[in-house]
């Protein structure tokens, strides 16, 4: 990892440790106060506990032009960003995709193209609905590895993370606590429950937490929709297409809507926020990734709306292509932060 980012974060953490005014904003400060010296692993853990709410920046009496030049949200964002790059498996993919919106877009385009191509050569002789375009077996053949590979990759990264921060073996209670905190995004409320300082300097708002919740729960609903459909297909012998009053459709529709709205709001907030308080070089990549995620949701909704028309094959390829790109990219994009966040919260709970 770049030692200058680590050293800068270390310098700032030592100042915060002598100050302690921000104790109470988030989990970072109590964890920070437990140390007197900060190893690279400690800083990686602190960085992944921080969710860039910026509360500490606006409360700080030492921000530039003061010579102490504190900007803890940015210092931690840089370390965090680098840590994801560094812990990614394979590492080269991490380096390439982490900060690069162009790469993300390229991957998505490749995904679409692949789908089109496969659809044209593997066009099934029979099949209903979507399967008339791409056979069920072809879909599974593409998506199963695209789903399993990211899981494997993230599993390896999390092991590396565990090792780097020097954490104890995982215990269920700590993991449970981490999931509880993530589920209601406790930290995004700020220590006082007024929210965070993302959109308008020192004003506290709940907008980012709300947007974040919409994205997370929207995504989980979509995921649930696919999972239920899979179970219905294989276990219950009820293949698609499903009617509107079916579990996959209800979950997918509500999830898709939440996901799209959440992503739009996320991008709006990100554009309004002060870029100097985040990892500057990741800005474009993050916007591109949120865009991709939003597009997954949107193309799914459009596909649903226009699924009976002649546009369907094109829309299907676009949707499946973006889903494919999303899955494959998961370990190397902003999406990975969710896994690291849970890991950091679990490590924190174990201390």
């Amino acid at each position: 990892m770049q030692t200058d980012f680590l050293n800068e974060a270390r310098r700032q953490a030592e100042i915060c440790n002598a100050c302690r005014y921000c104790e109470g904003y988030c989990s970072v400060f109590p964890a920070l106060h437990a140390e007197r010296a900060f190893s690279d692993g400690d800083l990686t853990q602190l960085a992944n506990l921080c969710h860039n709410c910026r509360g500490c920046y606006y409360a700080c009496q030492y921000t530039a032009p003061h010579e102490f030049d504190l900007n803890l949200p940015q210092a931690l964002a840089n370390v965090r960003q680098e840590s994801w790059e560094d812990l990614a498996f394979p590492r080269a993919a991490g380096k390439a995709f982490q900060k690069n919106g162009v790469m993300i877009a390229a991957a998505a385009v490749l995904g679409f193209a692949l789908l089109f191509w496969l659809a044209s050569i593997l066009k099934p002789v029979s099949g209903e609905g979507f399967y008339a375009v791409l056979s069920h077996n072809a879909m599974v053949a593409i998506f199963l590895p695209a789903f399993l590979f990211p899981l494997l990759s993230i599993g390896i990264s999390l092991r590396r993370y565990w090792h780097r921060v020097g954490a104890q073996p995982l215990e269920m209670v700590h993991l449970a606590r981490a999931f509880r905190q993530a589920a209601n995004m406790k930290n995004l409320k700020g220590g006082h429950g007024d929210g965070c300082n993302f959109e308008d300097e020192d004003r506290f708002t709940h907008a980012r937490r709300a947007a974040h919740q919409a994205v997370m729960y929207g995504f989980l609903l979509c995921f649930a929709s696919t999972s239920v459909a899979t179970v219905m297909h294989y276990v219950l012998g009820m293949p698609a297409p499903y009617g509107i009053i079916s579990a996959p459709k209800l979950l997918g529709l509500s999830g898709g809507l939440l996901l799209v709205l959440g992503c739009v709001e996320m991008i709006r907030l990100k554009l309004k926020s002060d870029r100097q308080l985040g990892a500057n070089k990741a800005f474009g990549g993050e916007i591109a990734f949120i865009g991709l995620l939003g597009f997954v949701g949107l193309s799914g909704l459009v596909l649903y709306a226009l699924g009976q028309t002649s546009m369907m094959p094109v829309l299907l390829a676009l949707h499946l292509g973006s889903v494919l790109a999303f899955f494959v990219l998961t370990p190397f994009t902003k999406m990975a932060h969710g896994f690291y966040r849970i890991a950091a919260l679990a490590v924190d709970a174990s201390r």
Partner: protein
Amino acid sequence: MTRPENTPDIVVIGGGNAALCAAITAAEAGARVLILEGAPKTYRGGNSRHTRNFRCMHDGPLGPLVESYSEEEYLADLMKVTGGKTDEGLARLAIRTSEECLPWLEAHGVRFQPSLSGTLSLARTNAFFLGGGKSLVNAYYRTAEALGVQVEYEAKVTHLELNEDRIDFLDYTQGGKSHRLAPKSVVVASGGFQADVDWLARAWGPAAKNFLIRGTPYNRGVVLADLLEQGIEQVGDPTQCHAVAIDGRAPKFDGGIVTRLDCVPFSIVVNKDGQRFYDEGEDVWPKRYAIWGRLVAAQPDQVGYVIIDAKSLNLFMPSVFPPIKADTLEELAEMMGLPADALLQTISDFNAACGNPSDFHPTELDGVSTQGLTPPKTNWARAITEPPFYGYSLRTGVTFTYLGLKVDERAQCSIGNRPVSNLWAAGETMAGSILGQGYLAGFGMTIGTVFGRIAGREAAAHAN
């Protein structure tokens, strides 16, 4: 004088806690208020942005405060630190009103720490701001602006024109241009004069040039001097100020809280000749913290040097600058620029006077003291023997000065024995009316909040 349309009813001079409390209160009473803050926006809030807590009387649990803290106990604490040099009437007013201030702070956007970790245990007497004083200041600016208060930054007030017993107009400069306003009421909340080192040197002597200023460089006492020259009633002694011993490597201005050093009780402190000069173990640190500012100020070149050994390093709050570290005391002396022979002699005398350290207890007065040594170390006296050895330099850090404007219980200023009809003062600039000497942690914000609100209320009543 005719009043142009956009002239505010009230001008508040300053942009810290006292000013904001006054502006908010006046705006809530319906007045049109303008804040003239001398600092740029990034440095707005004066010393208030460096603060941490607010001392508050309370009858039972209140907000983040536990148990109770009565008027009599609060006053007794104040009497102790000031040696009785206080105006009891005003002190009681500040103390009594502090209780209703806490909910007022919360209602105007200030948030408190739920409870406190770390070394200070003030959970009963002091409410700690979540995020510290800058977050308090931010919350107040948001509240004030929502109430229609106008704020001008980098607006330095240079002169108030006194005519008989009223202020006719005030002058300020901004962006190289001079402006003149004729408000109906004026509230002065522009702090002390500690950032004017020449003024400090006039009061203290040349030694003051070596002092560090813990807070804002913008409190230069310009308005205070201007008013005192015109005969506005003064209070306090120019040599009285709140000063503590801080890390000698701190910036000249604005180092704030992080430059404090909590290691003195576990150390010996010598001057630049390698000689000890005071009992380092007199009391637990927060109580004795303040006296070391004066002790160091009285030493040659206004410096002191703290020496500890490895067994004490983790007993105090982490320091912002790492200590100087050496494997031998000779080496440490050289690195710190101290005469090695004298320092070694001082340490061996000290070590020889240390008795049995088995009762050593870092968080309470443990009575582990030296025998037959002058000056003695009356608590936490343990021989300095275990390498590596660590050292810090100490300098005097001035928090704020006490010479100021004398006010009455309505925060009004006076000339001779009559009030100035449209002039009020709040905060540090009148704190000497209550604090004759010494300091009680969290009382600065109490004075600013209580008198800021009174000044705002009175100024608005006069203007409306």
